């Protein structure tokens, strides 16, 4: 089979799996698990073959036009370069792990068939985004991901948190998607085509008429999808979904799509200096803000969610300094270790019966209950904190190196200010990342107090995938930083000495400070009992998690934070903690800026509908009714009255006819 055929199979197989899963889910429950796992596993193999065949050489391009669609043609096009091939492999790998993990995680869930089918569809949409060479087809995958995330985040729709989170995720991403759509249209109008290759050709020849406008419009969509400031607020709330879905969203699909899109169309953004500066500011604010917020979260998954936002900030930062190789490198390594972090967090939540770090810090021997999760999570947290030689170190250093490259005067792609901004923000974030990673590890695995409950061994399907993902988390960066430039633009991804030393130094400093704070507060842990565990420890992991999420707000007063005086984050942040826990009141700002006006508008519309429109409607109904009453009163039964009216009408008609006939 040609590479093109194989590439078409990659998104198609999960899609067919999803369709078959939805059709057969009720009638043949035995087929659901194979239908969930096998297509994506095959897609992984095929994607790997495609990547090997592509090999970082010239991009594979293929296009067919199904039907003419007006002035700007829409084609089913493939455009597979090194980025697409490698990202597709990552997506398939994480999705395979998630599907296998889900068979254990949602073992007893009655809605597992539709869940698995939606995960497959989600993956298929992401693969479509990755492989497509046409912007409209990309948009199709983009929006399918949006609706899938809505369904999957709302999987536990019995809980109000999940319902609110799914609607929020959908609406906030849509807030970005509307300008994104307009930007795509503007771009295609300027370039005369939706094909990415032609768009890039046009950009290379300076053919864009409104580069800044287009870039900013597209950035809005990217910010929504990739959870960048100020449209990131949906991502922490999306933790109300099942943990495997979080892993999928954070590691491979949804949030990676925005970064990947910018990486694909980076020349379009580079055509506008203003857009690059906006991108840099967006990345810097996102990075630092999310790091601080992550330090204040109590829900283990929310910590990881804010960390995802921060790492995505690194990727957009790399794009802002014009190095998409570094961005995609970090995307790949982050995909591996963040998927691992979430899946391990799922195991921990199941074992501990709670998602609260405050409660975990009062359990001893949790790491002995879940040794697989402990070791793999340690690896992943080290990768997250960018400690050499884990893969996160290499990818993050490539980002910082790219920023430093720009600050030293190589500003042909990006303004120097952006370089400085990214460099400083990146170093601060490295400190914060190490701090919250250490806090997470210490609170989860070094708890003191009652022994953690023993629920027996975790399902093998949930532990094996952790080790599978631990391998790239550990080794991908070190093994790949020399070969990856051949697949990408050719920019060197080797860590620079200066940034490596400084970055590792601040990371170690962050970790040590956190450790010191934790030691300082250890005594307090025993004094203040706090915590609540799930009521059904024997249920499957999904049930435990749903209960943990639903009870967090009643037990601790808030979905995000807990009043735990022994929390090192509270000591480190000081007065900032209160604001960081609620995401710097951005939700309140949105509440004031968007939700209240919309609700006021809605109540206005309701008032207009009830009082004004309905008045007309009622009037329209009342007039015929009055007429009917009047006509009914005329029905006296008196034949003479009837005949009088009849003859009067006849006379009138006759006179009228005469007047007309005589020409009067």
């Amino acid at each position, binding site marked *: 089979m040609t590479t093109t055929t194989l590439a078409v199979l990659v998104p198609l197989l999960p899609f067919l799996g999803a369709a078959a899963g939805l059709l057969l889910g009720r009638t043949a429950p035995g087929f659901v698990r194979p239908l969930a796992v096998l297509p994506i596993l095959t897609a992984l193999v095929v994607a790997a073959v495609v990547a090997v065949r592509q090999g970082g050489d010239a991009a594979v391009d293929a296009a067919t036009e199904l039907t003419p669609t007006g002035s700007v043609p829409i084609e089913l096009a493939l455009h597979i370069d090194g980025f697409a091939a490698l990202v597709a492999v990552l997506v398939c790998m994480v999705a395979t792990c998630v599907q296998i993990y889900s068979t254990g995680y949602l073992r007893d869930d009655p809605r597992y068939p539709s869940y698995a089918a939606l995960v497959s569809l989600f993956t298929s949409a992401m693969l479509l985004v990755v492989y497509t060479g046409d912007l409209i087809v990309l948009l199709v995958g983009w929006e399918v991901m949006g609706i899938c995330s809505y369904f999957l985040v709302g999987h536990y729709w019995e809980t109000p948190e999940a319902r609110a989170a799914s609607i929020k995720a959908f609406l906030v991403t849509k807030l970005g998607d509307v300008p994104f759509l307009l930007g795509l249209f503007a771009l295609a109008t300027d370039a005369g085509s939706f094909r990415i290759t032609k768009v890039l050709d046009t950009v290379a020849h300076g053919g864009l008429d409104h580069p800044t406008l287009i870039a900013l419009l597209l950035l809005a969509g990217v910010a929504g999808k990739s959870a960048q400031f100020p449209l990131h607020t949906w991502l922490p709330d999306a933790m109300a979904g099942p943990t495997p879905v979080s892993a999928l969203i954070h590691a491979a699909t949804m949030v990676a799509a925005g970064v990947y899109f910018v990486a694909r169309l980076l020349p379009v953004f580079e055509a506008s200096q203003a857009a690059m500066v906006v991108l840099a500011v967006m990345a810097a604010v996102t990075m630092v803000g999310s790091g601080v917020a992550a330090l204040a979260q109590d829900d283990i998954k929310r910590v990881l969610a804010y960390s995802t936002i921060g790492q995505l900030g690194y990727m957009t930062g790399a794009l802002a300094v014009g190095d998409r190789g570094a961005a995609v490198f970090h995307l790949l390594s982050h995909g591996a270790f963040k998927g691992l972090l979430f899946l391990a967090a799922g195991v921990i939540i199941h074992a501990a019966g709670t998602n609260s770090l405050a409660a975990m810090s009062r359990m001893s021997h949790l790491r002995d209950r879940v040794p697989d999760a402990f070791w793999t999570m340690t690896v992943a947290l080290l990768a997250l904190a960018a400690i050499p030689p884990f893969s996160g170190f290499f990818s993050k250093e490539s980002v910082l190196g790219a920023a430093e490259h720009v600050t030293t005067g190589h500003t042909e792609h990006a303004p120097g200010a952006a370089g400085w901004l990214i460099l400083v923000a990146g170093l601060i974030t490295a400190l914060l990342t190490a701090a919250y990673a250490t806090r997470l590890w210490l609170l989860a695995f070094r708890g003191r107090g009652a022994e953690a409950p023993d629920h027996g061994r975790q399902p093998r399907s949930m532990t094996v995938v952790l080790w599978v993902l631990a391998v790239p988390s550990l080794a991908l960066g070190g093994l790949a930083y020399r070969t990856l430039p051949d697949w990408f633009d050719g920019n060197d991804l080797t860590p620079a000495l200066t940034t490596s030393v400084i970055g590792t130094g601040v990371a170690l400093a962050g970790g040590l400070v956190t450790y010191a704070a934790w030691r300082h507060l250890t005594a307090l842990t025993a004094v203040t009992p706090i915590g609540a565990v799930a009521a059904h420890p024997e249920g499957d992991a999904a049930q435990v998690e749903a209960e943990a999420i639903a009870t967090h707000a009643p037990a601790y007063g808030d979905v995000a934070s807990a009043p735990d005086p022994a929390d090192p984050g509270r000591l480190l942040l000081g007065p900032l903690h209160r604001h960081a826990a609620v995401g710097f009141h951005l939700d309140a700002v949105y509440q004031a800026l968007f939700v209240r006006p919309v609700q006021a508008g809605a109540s206005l519309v309701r008032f207009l509908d009830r009082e004004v429109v309905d008045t007309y409607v009622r009037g329209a109904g009342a007039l015929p009714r009055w007429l009917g009453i009047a006509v*009914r*009163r005329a*029905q*006296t*039964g*008196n*034949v*003479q009255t009837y*005949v*009088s009216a009849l*003859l009067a009408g006849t006379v009138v008609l006759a006179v009228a006819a005469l007047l007309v006939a005589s020409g009067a």
Partner: protein
Amino acid sequence: MHLAYPAVLAALLFCTGLYGVLARRNAILVLMSVELMLNAVNLNLVAFDVWLSRAAEETLHSGQALTLFTIAIAAAEIGIGLAIVLAVHRNRGTSDIDRLRDTAEGHESPTADGHDNDAPTIDGTEKAEATA
């Protein structure tokens, strides 16, 4: 003779009959008014027949023939009409046509109690009076 004389007379008589039909309460008086209207038409027919038999040399005398037919039919009509009026009078105890309001809105159908004794019929009459 000026044709307008019989034509105007016929028109006036017709309208007089019309007034009678619309204004009279007793059904037999209404029948009389109908006769007036018929006679007005007859006068028209005769007058125009006489005019046309000369002016257009019409030899069929269709006007007079139609007049005869009208007279015959009027006789038949008055017979049937009186029979109906008598039947109504016998059943309802009245021949005032503005009391025969079975078609009025909100009037109960009298067929339901047609075989009952005269109490429901009187009920209907009362209702008709109430609405009148």
